[in-house]
């Protein structure tokens, strides 16, 4: 009797998995809040540019997607530990990261922007004018790498985990200037009185890609195909217009 039941349940399992063979289950991770890419609206629902793009991509891939929230520090370890399958959380493509994860083609690129109080009037590219200033960056971002490589020893670099904490310290005058992903600075710093953009935005790196485990080459292929389709058929542009006044497409 027992054997029969096991056999029956095995058969059932095979049948059901066969029926869903075409439909992939994907868990996609976001780190919120990172406006306007991924954040929670007034109702607490997950929304943003990357969330909308992920939803459109899933539809294109005919995948059954689940959205997961994961703090930035645990992003890559969580992916490798199979807590989720894709990262679509503004992860810039860098050689160091590419050692550990597989990136799709880039799906957007935003510049890094310099933001500071109205009283700030130094030229951010002039090292003698910047000497002794305190610059805030988010730890591990391409902006962090840029400031670390170009300005170490000239400025004091303070690294933050979240943009919120960094902006709080800019407001509290602990920082002279922040170098942050442009849209984030626009949402968090420029929305406040007494702050402005203080230098030319700098395009850094290749852009942002979907990160996957290295062995998931087939998923990467499907993701690339879906992204290319969305960029061509106008879906991408429609989503982009909803969140940005400027072009982030690559």
């Amino acid at each position, binding site marked *: 009797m027992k054997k029969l039941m096991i056999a029956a349940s095995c058969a059932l399992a095979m049948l059901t998995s066969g029926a869903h063979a075409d439909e992939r289950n994907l868990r996609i991770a976001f780190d919120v809040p990172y406006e306007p890419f991924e954040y929670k609206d007034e109702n607490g629902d997950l929304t943003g540019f990357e969330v909308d793009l992920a939803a459109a991509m899933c539809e294109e891939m005919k995948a059954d997607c689940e959205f997961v929230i994961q703090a930035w*520090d645990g992003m890559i370890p969580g992916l490798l530990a199979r807590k989720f399958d894709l990262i679509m959380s503004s992860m810039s493509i860098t050689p160091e990261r590419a*050692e550990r994860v597989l990136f799709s083609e880039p799906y957007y690129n935003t510049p890094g922007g310099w933001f500071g109080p109205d009283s700030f009037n130094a030229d951010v590219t002039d090292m003698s004018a910047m000497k002794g200033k305190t610059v805030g960056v988010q730890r591990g971002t391409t902006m962090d790498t840029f400031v670390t490589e170009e300005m170490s020893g000239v400025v004091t670099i303070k690294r933050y985990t979240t943009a919120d904490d960094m902006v709080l*310290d800019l407001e509290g005058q602990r920082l002279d200037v922040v170098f942050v992903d442009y849209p984030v600075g626009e949402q968090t710093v420029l929305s406040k009185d007494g702050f402005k953009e203080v230098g030319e935005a700098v395009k850094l790196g290749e852009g942002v890609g979907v990160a996957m485990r290295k062995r998931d080459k087939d998923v990467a292929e499907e993701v690339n195909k879906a992204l290319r389709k969305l960029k061509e058929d106008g879906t991408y542009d429609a989503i982009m217009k909803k969140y940005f006044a400027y072009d982030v497409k690559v």
Partner: protein
Amino acid sequence: MPPDFIAAWLNRNEIFTAMTIMEYWDGMVTTVQLVFLCLIIGLAFAVPLAILRTVKNPFVSGPVWLYTYIFRGTPLLIQLYIIYYGVAQIPGIQETFWWEIFREPFYPALLAFTLNTCAYTTEIIRGAIISTPHGEIEAAKAYGMNWFMRMRRIVLPSAARRAVQAYSNEVIFMLHSSAIASVVTIVDLTGAARNIYSRFYAPFDAFIFVALCYMVLTFILVFVFRKIENRLLRHQRPVGS
């Protein structure tokens, strides 16, 4: 100069270069400074506060009770956030001389850690004081010692013996709690590990190494407290050992 084989090994691997080792070292110096200072200041204030806490008059012991209750009743992380970010939000603080102190993250963190460890230490010492055997105090009174002399000669020395083991725990907890200093931009041991981790995306290498650093520091603390206990509690040792 390090031996050749260490230099060769350092040259081969990507993460533990001379530069990152220096970052860890600077972090260790910051951690030791922070923990050492907060423990010394905390202990210095904890002794008089513990004595006040044992006084019968509620107007004297009440405020101390309230202080230890607040700081033992809330997480250290929250205390640090309130002191570091809260102070910067006070209007006009940037124009006062206090800002010189609170601008850098080191002093807000030191203040939070000191207040926290002082609260715990106060309770440890208070517990040791109130468990002084009554006979010792009566004997001291019979000798005509006044309150101050009784405290200095009888109560505090015997309380120190009873408190030292619990206090050594508090010291080790404080060392580990200091890891949260990295959330307010201090590059302590944990801060160095987080920076290196985010640069190389190698969590095991970065964090296991820093865990070993903490274990070395803990080992030193345990060793020091073993020496202190041996000295303070030598009367408890079996005869002849």
